[in-house]
């Protein structure tokens, strides 16, 4: 019983951590897109990956706030996908390949 409560607390913490990271990542991405400047630190992608991993782990553990966990995971995935899209397609649109 005690273990189950501890596990629940841990997953809730992970879920909150993933959601928080996702919110910060998404906010900074929005700012960067709006001002059209690269404001990301070099470790930005690691933070995104950390957010995704913690979200996935929280999803597999029992958590009361499944909605928040999924939303946090989605935010981190969207941030990563946007960055990858910008990098890949920027190379694709190239007058002198």
């Amino acid at each position, binding site marked *: 019983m005690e273990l189950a409560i501890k596990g629940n607390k841990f997953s809730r913490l992970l879920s909150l951590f993933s*959601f928080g990271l*996702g*919110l910060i990542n*998404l*906010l900074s*991405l*929005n700012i960067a*897109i*709006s001002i*059209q400047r690269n404001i990301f630190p070099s470790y930005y992608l690691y933070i995104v990956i950390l957010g995704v991993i913690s979200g996935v782990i929280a999803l597999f553990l029992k958590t009361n706030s499944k*909605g*928040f966990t999924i*939303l946090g995971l*989605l*935010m981190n995935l*969207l*941030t990563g*996908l*946007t960055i990858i*899209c*910008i990098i*890949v*397609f*920027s190379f*694709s*649109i*190239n*007058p*002198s*390949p």
Partner: protein
Amino acid sequence: MDKEQFNDLLNKYKQNKLSKEEEILFEKELDKYESYQDFLDGESEKDYKKTISNPPSKHMKSLNKGKRKAIISNALMTIAIALMILPMCTIFSFVYYGYGIADSRGNNFIQVAADTISITEPNATVDFQNIRTNVGLFSMEGDFDIYKQIGNNQKHLRTDNLTLFLNKVDQPERLKDFNAQKFSHPENPSLSTTNDVNQQLQNLPDGTVSEVFVSLDAFYSEEEIKNIFSDIELDILWYAVNTGIVDDTKYTAIGYPAQDGDINSSFNNKEENSKQFIQVLNRLNKYQDWAETITQNRSLNINEVTKFIDENGIEIYGVVVTGPTKELLKLNEIPEVTNQNLGGVELWNWR
């Protein structure tokens, strides 16, 4: 009076079976119950009011806590969803312009813009190494540095900023001066400006190089043109090609560069420029709207021009040449030259 007796009397009262005396007695009994009922109603109302005005503090606390939680989670979800809109639109824009790699919409836009400038502006080339592109929300912008050759050097003419909003090119801001006719068609010769150009060339100092737009009396092939100008020390830069459109004063001359451009340009050293010119026309056929907006010429008629050139072949009636100013005076001695227009003049930069 016990319960059964009372019920019995109540039924008889309802059915009007009681005697007068019994009825009066029973009504007195009922009055007692009415005042008892009023008392009970009053007590229960007091209890209810008490419960509402002083709820237990524990319940209230948990109620408030739940309310706060719901507000915060709703706000966070709304913020998260709102923050997702811009990245999703950005992904859409990048995929829209970048999907297809070499044949992507963005690359086609760059190629069409550069090709249109190369074939509609005499002696103008786009610097492919320095094209700056920027994908915004549902739009793509491109900055094109345009150069013209005078003497041996490339001179920066201007920078064109073109925007593609979804699939529509925005009208460029620049005012075109090159819309003015620089060549006269052999079938519709305009007033000759050769004497004026001669005067200008004679008055220019010896150590200069110039750019001259030369019109010819008939249609020639590339080889014939090279033979005509073989005795003069000059470079041929651009050929004006007969498109079959003779009497439209607003019509811009269409032609192709005489010299090979950048490896990424449509006029590179892989094939003869005349063949590449036909390929460019075929490509621009698909993007006629873009080409017309870029040149600000709604009557470019690329489709008709392509058909005409396919049927008649490439017939050249004008050239852009550059060379030492005094050397260009010899153009007067060539009988095929009907008209001249002076372009740019620069300080000496020749072989």
